């Protein structure tokens, strides 16, 4: 059971990773990276509960926060880039 | 109270500049920041002198940080090899600060002065920390403090090329530091300890493994980058050339020496000369590289147009001499190398100070700017001539003493020794060429309009320059003090080999 959970998450991670490398567009990559991050968190949580490592759960919490914030940062970066483009075109 | 201070001298040596750097960072007034830095530098100098006295009177000192005994905690260790280095470093710290009051005012915009002094103090603290520590990993940490702050110092330079120089230095420096980290990791893996003395005890039993050999190679290569040994010297000329004058004075005089110190420390104290020169082909490699460095450095120096670049390339060459001494691995060679490290610090400090004076007047330091300076700025040029003669190795200057010892050491090595002597002599001839080029411009060419009304550099800039020049002469005339220190340093290095 434990194995099944871990394995399924691992599979998803692998698929997401491939999408992140191959992804045609930038947004696909971001999406895949996001998904990868979520799955890492899940994996850590699973390992922590089922593997009997209570300390790992702290790490999982940090991962999930970091993941969210980096997604926000990336997207804000895009918006910023767009505004800069506009500023440049307006010139 | 006094005894408490004396007991904690090794800690104070580093802590003083380290802790006052952030305070300095907050000071808004330029004068205040400088004054604070200068006071700290005087204290540091006093501490280092006291340490030197203690060590020469009572032998090596050991100080346990945090009260934990050495293999577990971090140890500070002062012996007759690094005590003179501490003195040298804090001396340069004082001299450069005295110089920087005026120079920085001119070269760096006002709001950043406090930042400059703060970075400068961090840099000094980092270098002192590297020298004094007896823990391999601690070397890495302080190496990073000093290198980060020296990148900052270099990037303060006005020219935009200062930025690329700093970036290049950063990349190279970090590669070097990471190599050092890998090397330390390997030896840690084999021995399980990070303390240098403990390493020296535990290494011989695993000496024959591939891992230790590779570790040695990594440490040597990593530090060679920092030392700017010949093929890895590309960062140096630009970094010194475009840094603000005060920064280049200090960095040129000390930073590569400290890296060389680490190199020597690891080779002799940690690995032991027997391993370094017996099991590894260190000697031929270093000798060849060093001799090439002498030639390449000197030749490049001849073709530079900017005086700071001339001096920087000449540094590459002079580093070659030091490495020759160190690669000979005999008592005489080692003491010659160490001697030259001191003498070169003094001479190069003097020359860069002069370059800073000229830069202060004309906002550039190309060779053309020296036209007629022999008349308009006689004192400045006087100091330059003294320093230049030292570089060439004329008798009665410091350079002569160390080259003499180097040649004496080489004589013990038969045919190779003769080749080395030839290289040293040829290098001196090349040095004559590049120094003469500047002197000729200064004394035998008439100043053009721009430089005609140039006047003597301010007194406060001349004092440090002449101080260093006089020091050069003093060492040349009466070398007993420095030679004694260098010899006992070499003795302690070779004596501590297992």
């Amino acid at each position: 059971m434990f194995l099944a959970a871990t394995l399924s998450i691992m599979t998803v991670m692998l698929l997401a990773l491939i999408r992140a490398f191959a992804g045609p567009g930038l947004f696909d990559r971001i999406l895949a990276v996001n998904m990868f991050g979520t799955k890492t968190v899940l994996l850590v949580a699973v390992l922590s509960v089922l593997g009997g490592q209570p300390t790992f759960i702290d790490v999982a919490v940090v991962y999930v926060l970091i993941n969210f914030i980096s997604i926000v940062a990336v997207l804000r970066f895009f918006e910023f880039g767009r505004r800069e483009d506009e500023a440049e075109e307006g010139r | 109270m006094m005894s408490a201070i004396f007991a904690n001298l090794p800690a104070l040596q580093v802590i003083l500049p380290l802790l006052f750097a952030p305070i300095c960072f907050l000071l808004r007034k330029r004068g205040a920041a400088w004054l604070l830095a200068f006071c700290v530098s005087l204290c540091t100098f006093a501490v280092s002198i006291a340490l030197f006295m203690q060590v020469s009177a009572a032998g090596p000192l050991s100080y346990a940080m945090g009260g934990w005994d050495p293999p577990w905690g971090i140890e500070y260790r002062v012996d007759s090899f690094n005590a003179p280095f501490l003195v040298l470093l804090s001396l340069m710290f004082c001299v450069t600060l005295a110089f920087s009051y005026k120079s920085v005012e001119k070269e760096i915009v006002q709001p950043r002065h406090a930042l400059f002094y703060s970075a400068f103090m961090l840099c000094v603290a980092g270098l002192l920390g590297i020298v004094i520590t007896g823990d391999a990993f601690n070397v890495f940490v302080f190496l990073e403090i000093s290198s980060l702050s020296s990148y900052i110092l270099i990037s303060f330079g006005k020219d935009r090329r200062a930025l690329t120089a700093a970036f290049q230095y950063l990349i190279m420096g970090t590669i070097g530091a990471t190599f050092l980290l890998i090397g330390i990791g390997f030896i840690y893996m084999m021995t399980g300890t990070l303390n240098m003395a403990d390493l020296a005890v535990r290494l011989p039993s695993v000496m024959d493994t591939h891992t230790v050999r590779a570790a040695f190679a990594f440490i040597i290569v990593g530090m060679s980058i920092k030392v700017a040994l010949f093929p890895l010297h590309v960062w140096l000329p630009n970094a010194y050339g475009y840094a603000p004058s005060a920064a280049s004075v200090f960095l040129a005089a000390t930073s590569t020496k400290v890296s060389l110190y680490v190199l020597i420390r690891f080779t002799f104290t940690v690995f032991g000369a027997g391993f370094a020169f017996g099991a590894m082909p260190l000697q031929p490699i270093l000798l060849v590289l060093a001799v090439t460095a002498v030639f390449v450095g000197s030749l490049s120096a001849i073709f530079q147009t900017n005086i700071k670049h001339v001096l920087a390339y000449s540094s590459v060459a002079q580093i070659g001499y030091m490495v020759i001494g160190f690669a000979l691995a005999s008592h005489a060679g080692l003491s010659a190398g160490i001697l030259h490290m001191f003498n070169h610090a003094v001479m190069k400090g003097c020359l860069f100070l002069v370059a800073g004076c000229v830069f202060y007047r004309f906002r550039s330091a190309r060779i053309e700017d020296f036209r007629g300076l022999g008349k308009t700025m006689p004192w400045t040029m006087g100091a330059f001539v003294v320093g230049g003669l030292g570089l060439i190795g004329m008798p009665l200057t410091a350079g002569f003493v160390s080259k003499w010892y180097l040649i004496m050491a080489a004589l013990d090595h038969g045919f190779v020794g003769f080749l080395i002597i030839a290289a040293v002599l040829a290098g001196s001839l090349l040095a004559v060429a590049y120094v003469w080029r500047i002197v000729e411009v200064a004394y035998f060419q008439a100043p053009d309009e721009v430089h005609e009304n140039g006047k003597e550099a301010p007194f406060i800039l001349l004092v440090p320059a002449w101080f260093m020049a006089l020091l050069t002469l003093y060492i040349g005339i009466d070398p007993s003090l420095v030679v004694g220190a260098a010899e006992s340093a070499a003795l302690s290095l070779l004596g501590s080999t297992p």
Partner: protein
Amino acid sequence: MSLFIDIISWACILCGGFLGVTGAIGLFRFPDFYTRLHAASITDTLCAGLIILGLILQAGFTLMSLKLLMLLGIFAYTAPTASHILAKTAFKCGLKPVLYDQKGGGS
């Protein structure tokens, strides 16, 4: 009782795992970014929720399950938000969804 909890939790975890795999396949098979996002985000939220729920049941009433609950809460907040802004920014940056009548023109 404990067997009952075990069964439920394992069912949750398995369902979650299954959903995750589905989502990942969706990430591969769907034609354009928006459908992929759809596949990924929906399964993601539910999958995470289910798995953590299962884990909480496994862990019992401890500090651990409290932290897991917190994790679940953060997930419930962040995952949809992330998908939301992702879609929004993508749309604003001019990435158009593939419509029915112009098949194959993706990205």
